[in-house]
C-alpha cells in the first residue's frame, strides 16, 4: 500500500541498541529506586507523567516537559532515530525520566533529564545512568550535552567539568536549539564515573518486580494541589 510505503520513508533509519541493564539505588531517605529502560508500549504512562509539568515555569520544567513529551511521542511513532528512555521508579511510581539518542556508533546526544520527586538527587542519578548507558552499554566515545536551566548547567557543565565545544559553534551544535555544546568524552567519563554513577546489579527479583508496571505519580511537588483524577 502507498501509505505503508510513505510511512516507511518517513521513519528514520534505526540502529539496534543494546538494552540497559536495570539497577537499584537506595536513596538518602531509604527508598529504593529501580532504574531501567522503558519499552515503547509504556509510552502512555510516560506521557501521562510528563504532561502536567508542561505548565510549570519554575526551573524551566515547561520547556523540558514540552520537549520531552514530543521526543517520547516521536520515539513511539517512529519519528526520532535511535532514542532510549530510562526511568527511575520507586514502588513502580515514576520519580524521574531521562532520554537520549545516538547519532552514530560513536556519538550520542543527551536530550532531557526530568526529576519528578525532588531533593534526593534523583536527577543526578538518572543523568549519570544515561551517561553509563552511552559509554558502558553502547560503547560510545562522546555525548553532546546542553543545559536548559541553571540547575542543569551546575549539575552537568560544572560538576562533570564537561569539555566546552563553544569554539566549534556553529559547526558543532546540539540539536536542541543550537545552544553552544558541551561534551562528555569517554576519557572524562572514566575519570568521574566512580563519583557519579551509582546503582547495584543484579537487582533482586522482588525489587525489580515493583517496577514491572509503571505508574504515573499522584502528587507533584511542583504542582501544589494536583489531583490526577481532575486531569
Amino acid at each position: 500500500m502507498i501509505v505503508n510505503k510513505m510511512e516507511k520513508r518517513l521513519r528514520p533509519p534505526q540502529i539496534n541498541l543494546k538494552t540497559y541493564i536495570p539497577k537499584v539505588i537506595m536513596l538518602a531517605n531509604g527508598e529504593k529506586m529501580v532504574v531501567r529502560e522503558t519499552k515503547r508500549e509504556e509510552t502512555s504512562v510516560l506521557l501521562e507523567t510528563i504532561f502536567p509539568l508542561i505548565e510549570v515555569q519554575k526551573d524551566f520544567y515547561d520547556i523540558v516537559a514540552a520537549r520531552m513529551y514530543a521526543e517520547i511521542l516521536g520515539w513511539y511513532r517512529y519519528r526520532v532515530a535511535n532514542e532510549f528512555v530510562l526511568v527511575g521508579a520507586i514502588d513502580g511510581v515514576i520519580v524521574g525520566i531521562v532520554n537520549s539518542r545516538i547519532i552514530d556508533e560513536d556519538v550520542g546526544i543527551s536530550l532531557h533529564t526530568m526529576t519528578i520527586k525532588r531533593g534526593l538527587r534523583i536527577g543526578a542519578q538518572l543523568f549519570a545512568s544515561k551517561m553509563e548507558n552511552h559509554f558502558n552499554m553502547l560503547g560510545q566515545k562522546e555525548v553532546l550535552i546542553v543545559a536548559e536551566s541553571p540547575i542543569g548547567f551546575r549539575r552537568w557543565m560544572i560538576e562533570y567539568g564537561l569539555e566546552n565545544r563553544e569554539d566549534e559553534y556553529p559547526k558543532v551544535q546540539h540539536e536542541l536549539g543550537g545552544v553552544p555544546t558541551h561534551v562528555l568524552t569517554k576519557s572524562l567519563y572514566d575519570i568521574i564515573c566512580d563519583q557519579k554513577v551509582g546503582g547495584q546489579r543484579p537487582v533482586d527479583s522482588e525489587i525489580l518486580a515493583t517496577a514491572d508496571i509503571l505508574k504515573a505519580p499522584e502528587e507533584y511537588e511542583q504542582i501544589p494541589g494536583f489531583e490526577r483524577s481532575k486531569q
Partner: protein
Amino acid sequence: MRKVYIVGIGHTNFGNLSELDLDLVDIMAFASTEAMDDAGIRKNRKIVDQVIVANMGGGIINHQTGIASSLVSRLDLEPAMAELIENGPASGASAIKMGFACIASGMVDVVMVTGGELMRTVSGWEGTDFISTLLHPEAEYNYGLTLPAFGGMFTRLYMERYGLTDRELAMVAVKNHENATKNPYAHVITPCTLEAIFDNPDVDTVNPYIAEPVRLYSTCPVSDGAASVIMCAMDSPKMGYFKKKEPIVISGVGSATDTHCVHQREDPLRLKAVQLSAERAYKMAGLSAKDISFAELHDAFLVLELAISEEIGFFKIGASKEAVVKGVTRINGSLPINTSGGLKAKGHPVGATGVSQVYELVKQLRGEAEKGRQVKNPKHGMAVNFGGFGNNVVTTICSKECKK
C-alpha cells in the same frame, strides 16, 4: 537591669523562595507581620519603639541597602527607630542582643528584631563566595579558603583527635532531619536514614563529598527566609498590649570573639568564643549547663553541633559523640539538640538563623512545637549562633519563668 520578655514570634518558610518573586524586605515583612499577629499588636503596631534588622548580604547579593528603614516603611511602623546589624552568620543573635540591651537599659520599651536573607537569588558558587567574604581577606580568602573548606578541615582534625567516625556524624544528620520533617518551616523536610547515607554501597553518589570528610548530609543547605521576635520590658505599661501569648523571658545573653584568622588560635579545635559567650550567658541567667532543657546549636557543619555542645558544658570535650549514639540529644532524650532540625535541615539563611533559633526556643517553651518534636516540660532553652569560623559567637538563654 530591666527584665525583657519575648512577646511575639514570626517565621517564614526556609528554602528556595526565589519563585515567589519577593525582595529581601518583603520576606522580612512576612516574618515581622506574623510576629505582630502572634503578639496581637497588628492594629497597635505603632507601639514598637525600635526595629533592629539582622542581615549579612543584602548589600552584596540583593543590591539592597538601608534595609531597616525600608522594613519600617513596609510595615507602616514609622517613626520607630531602625538599625541594621551585620555580624556575619551571627547577625540574628547579635540583633536580639542589641534589642535586649536597648530595653534592659531603659532606652525603649518595645523592640522588633527581624532577621532575613535571600541567598538563592545567586548561584551556589556566588553564595559560597559571598559567605567567604567574612574570612581574612589576605590570609584566608585570597588563598581560596571557603567556609566548607574550614568545615572539612575542622571535621578532619576533630575525627583524628577524638575518634569521631563518619557513621556517628551521619547519626547527627538523621536526628536533625527527623526533627525537620515535623517542622513546617524547614527547608529540607525529607528524612534520611543511616543505612542510606552511610551504610550504602552507593554512598558516594547518594551522599557525595562536599569538602572531604564533609558530605552533602553533613552540611547545611543554602536557604532563603526570615524570622522575627518582638520583645517588651516586663515593667513597661505597654506589656498590657501583650496578653495573647505567654511571655518568655530572655534570662541570659552573652557573646565573645576570637581571632579572625583560625591559624592564630593556640588550638584550632577549641572554640573559645563559644565557651566564653556561654559562660557569660549562664552567669547572667544564674544557670549552668545542667539546667538547660534543650538547645539550638549552630550546625552549619554537623561537627559544630558536637564541638559547640562540648564547649558550652553539655558534654566533656570529645565526648559528645557518645551522647549522640545513646540518643541523649534526640527529641525524647534527656538533652534534645536542634529540635527545629537545626541549620542542617531547617536551613541557614544566614541573617535569619540567630533569630530563628530564638523563635524555636520560644515555641518550645510555650509548648507550641508540632506533634512529635515538642520537648517535654522545658524550662530553659539555649541558642548558640556561631559567626565567622568561631570568631564571633552569641549565646541566648530563654526561660519559661525566671528562676534564679
